[in-house]
Each structure stands twice: as structure tokens, then as C-alpha cells.
């Protein structure tokens, strides 16, 4: 057979331009959509100089809002890391009535608009409702327009994060490792603690951190549920909104920078944990 090899005998026949074009498109997209906004905020926030920045941040309302955002998100992250892990564990390992329903509605917070979540919570815990009224009058717990309401909203939208992060890891776990532990005398609990937990720990952390970061910036549900009372139930996101509406760009920018910074650190932390976890 004498024919000369055709030009397309090369293993990767697509033009270098095509490759570069793709890469350029992807990077441009990411930079324009994400990197630039981040940079813009930072520049805008520090435009008036460091002093002004500090002043804006240390305003009582701003500090209070930031602190509220952080501690409510943290509480939510801790609770949901525990409950989320338990939920994932139960879903992967057992059969029980209601399992399919549970598995189906776990993604609800991902699907539902946050505003609708807020409305739902108002209808459930508002002072005129059964539940809300009971809590308020009998136990003195105000849910709406107070931190408990915020935490409830955050719990709702953060629930799936840890579950869906841990579930695939649990499913992929080598069953034999746990069986090996049994044959060596380990009880169910010990096996969970020494064999399963170390394997799912990275996923728990990434899920929890992601949920935390998400909760920090939550707006739609909080704006309905918290009443936006400055110094009492106003989170950072709502504070920023208020400042923007009121035209106080400086204050809005400053607090945005802080919020963004925290989110960024958390995201990088997630990426770091994710890249480090290498327990096959």
C-alpha cells in the first residue's frame, strides 16, 4: 500500500487555534463574570482611603450586622454539619419508611426561591400562627424579627450542602474496610468513629464551609423573616441593601468588602481541603 498518509493522521487534528479559542473564551467568561466584580468591589470599597474604610466598618450598625451574619451562619453550619452527616448516613445505610420522600425533598432548598422560603417561614412562625404564637407567648421566644428566625431560614437553605457532599463519599466507601473492622472486634460505633468518619471528614468540612459561606450572603429569606431592625436583626447583606437604597455607597462598599473577603477565604479553604483529601 503506497498511499501517502493523509494530513489528518495526526492524533489531535483540531487546530491549535480552536484550543486556544476555547481557553480564551472560558477564561474571559470567568474573569468578566467573577474576577472583575470582586476587584471592583475592593477598589470601590477602599476608594476613600483606609481611614474612611475603618470608620465605615466600625459603625455600630455595620459591626452589629456583620457579627450577626457571622454567628448565625456559624450556628447553622455546625448544626447542619451534624444533622446533615447523620441524614446522609441514614440515607445510605438503612431502609425505612419515608426514605424516598426524604431523599426527594432534601434538594428543596436548592430549588425554592429564597424569598418564598421567607414567606413560608413567616406563615409558619409569625406571631399570629399556632406555632409562632405558642413560642412567643408560652416560651417567650420570638422567632420572627429576631435571630432565631434568621437561624431557621439559614438552617433550611443550608441543609442540603453537607448531605449532598457526604452522601457520595459514604456510598463510595469500601464496605470491606468496615467489615474488616468488624472482624477485628470493632463495634458499629467504633467502626463509624475510626473508619468511616475519617473518610467522610473532608466532605463534612467542605459541605459545612460552603453552607457557611452561602449563609453569610443570604438575602432573600432574611429580608422577609428578620424585619431588618438595625442593631437587632439586620444581617450584613440586608445592611448593604439598605445602604445602597439610601445612597450611602461608601458604607455599602466597605461592608461588602469584608463580607466578600470572608466568603473568599472560606471558598479558598474549601478548595484547599478538597485538594488535600486523598484517602482513595
Amino acid at each position, binding site marked *: 500500500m503506497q498511499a501517502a498518509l493523509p494530513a489528518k493522521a495526526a492524533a489531535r487534528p483540531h487546530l491549535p487555534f480552536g484550543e486556544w479559542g476555547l481557553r480564551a473564551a472560558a477564561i474571559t467568561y470567568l474573569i468578566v463574570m467573577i474576577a472583575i466584580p*470582586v476587584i471592583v468591589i475592593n477598589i470601590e470599597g477602599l476608594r476613600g482611603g483606609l481611614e474612611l474604610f475603618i470608620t465605615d466598618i466600625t459603625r455600630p450598625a455595620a459591626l452589629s450586622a456583620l457579627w450577626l451574619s457571622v454567628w448565625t451562619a456559624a450556628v447553622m453550619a455546625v448544626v447542619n454539619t451534624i444533622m446533615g452527616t447523620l441524614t446522609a448516613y441514614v440515607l445510605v445505610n438503612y431502609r425505612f419508611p419515608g426514605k424516598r420522600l426524604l431523599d426527594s425533598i432534601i434538594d428543596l432548598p436548592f430549588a425554592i426561591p429564597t424569598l418564598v422560603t421567607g414567606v413560608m417561614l413567616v406563615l409558619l412562625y409569625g406571631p399570629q400562627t399556632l406555632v409562632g404564637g405558642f413560642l412567643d407567648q408560652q416560651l417567650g421566644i420570638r422567632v420572627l424579627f429576631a435571630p432565631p428566625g434568621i437561624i431557621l431560614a439559614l438552617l433550611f437553605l443550608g441543609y442540603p450542602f453537607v448531605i449532598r457532599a457526604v452522601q457520595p463519599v459514604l456510598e463510595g466507601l469500601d464496605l470491606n474496610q468496615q467489615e474488616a473492622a468488624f472482624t477485628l472486634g470493632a463495634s458499629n460505633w467504633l467502626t463509624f468513629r475510626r473508619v468511616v468518619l475519617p473518610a467522610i471528614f473532608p466532605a463534612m468540612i*467542605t459541605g459545612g464551609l460552603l453552607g457557611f459561606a452561602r449563609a453569610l*450572603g443570604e438575602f432573600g429569606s432574611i429580608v422577609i423573616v428578620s424585619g431588618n431592625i438595625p442593631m437587632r436583626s439586620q444581617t450584613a447583606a440586608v445592611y*448593604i441593601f439598605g445602604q445602597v437604597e439610601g445612597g450611602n455607597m461608601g458604607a455599602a462598599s466597605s461592608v461588602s468588602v469584608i463580607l466578600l473577603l470572608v466568603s473568599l477565604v472560606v471558598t479558598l479553604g474549601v478548595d484547599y481541603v478538597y485538594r488535600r483529601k486523598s484517602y482513595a
Partner: protein
Amino acid sequence: MRDKPVRTFWPWLLIGAVLLYAGLLLIAPIAAVIGGAFEDGIEPVLQAIAAPDALVALRLTFVLAISASVINAVLGIIVAWVLVRHRFPGKWFFNALVDLPFVVSPVIVGYVMIVLFGRTGWLQNFPIQLAFSLPGMLVVTVFVSLPFVIREVMPVLASLTQEQEEAAYTLGASFRTTFFRIVFPAIRHGIIYGVVLTLARALGEFGAVAVIGGGVQGVTETATIYIYRSLHDRNDVGAYSMAITLGLVSVGILVVMNWLRRDSHEKGTQHVHPTE
């Protein structure tokens, strides 16, 4: 050990605790909103939904959501491809960048747009009017729903080894042919699931569009902004009705999500949730 029926005591305690938590957290609010909206019967609800500005708001929401989904689908596939198949310095940075829209507060997003494109903004003379306008709302909607397709497609692409593509090349297929006949069918599931998630996120967007859109009734008022305004105007029925409508759409999306997830599970293609 998987899926085993529970015969001892302790697991039931665990299951009970989980069901209780999930029930209170997820189901109770749903029940409440259904109860609250239909408090005075079905009629008011239907009327409220049929109100002209409600319908306009709904239409706007859908237009924005679908447009954003299309944009994010196409560009998402490209980004996913580049991030999985290419190697270049700083790739890890861009990879991490993709997760940012998950965590950035929507209010900040809207605010950035104002800073850039507002009347006194940096790019105030940008040819397209982006502040307080539809295009601006589209941009922010694209931003907040950006990661989903990418994050769903990436793991599927990664598990599809290059060998299949290389086999196609050795058989003479061009890059385009290979992509559409070999790669695309394999990642199709991931794309669809990602688009569904994108749609859900875009439909529910509030903070960003509220800031950048200005919420002008009939023009830049989405369904979510409509709810917000109705609550302020003490139009509870209007708010609840719209909430139910959006809620129903979300449940519909949820059903599709579940069906897709189960389907892919059976087929063995791995779904990785956006949190990964």
C-alpha cells in the same frame, strides 16, 4: 450493609431524629404556605395570580431564567471542558473562581453592577444601558447561576477518559465530530441536570435583580420582587399566591431533579452535587 432493614434499636433512634429534623425543617414550612395561601379559599388565589402585573412579573422571571440558562449552558460546557482537559498555570485559581457565585451575596452582585454601570459609575458610558434595565438583570442572573452547569459537567467529563476521544481521533474524526458524537452524549446527563439547577437558581433570584433592576413595576419587576412589593403593600394574598406559584414551579423542578438523579444513578453515571 447498604439498604439494610433495621433490626436493632439504636439506628431507629437515629432515623427518628433525622426524620424529625427534616420534617420540621422542610415539610412544616411547605404545609404552612399552602395553608396560609388558601386560607380564604381558592378563588382569591387564582384571582391574584391572574392580576396583570403578576403575570407580567412571572413572564419576566421566565424570560430571564431561560436566557440565563442558555448562556450558562453553552459557556458552562466550554469552561468545564477547558478546566478538565487543559493544563495551564493558574488553573486552580480559575477553578476556585467558579465557586464564587455560590457564596457571594446577591446584594453585593447587584451593587457591583451599580458601581460599574450606574449613572456615576466607572463605565457609565457603556453602550448598553445596564443599570436599572433588563440587560443588567440578565447579567446578574447569569452570574448567580453560573457555577451549576460547570460543576455538574466537570466530574462527568473527568470520568470520561481521554482514551475514548483519542480512539475517535485515530479513526479520523475531527474535534467537532468527536465532541458532538462521543463526548456530548456522555455528558448530556450532567448538562441537563446542571441546566435544571441553573433554571431553579435563576428563577429564585431576588437580591441582585432587586438592586440592579430598580423594581419598576411592569418593566423590571420579577416574580420575586413582586412578592416583596406585595408584602410591603400589605397585599398578602398577592404575595402568598405568587409564592405558591413559584413554589409549585420549584417543586416541579425538584421532581425533575430527582428523576434525573435517580436515572443517572441507575445508569451509573456519577452525579456530583454543586457542593463538591
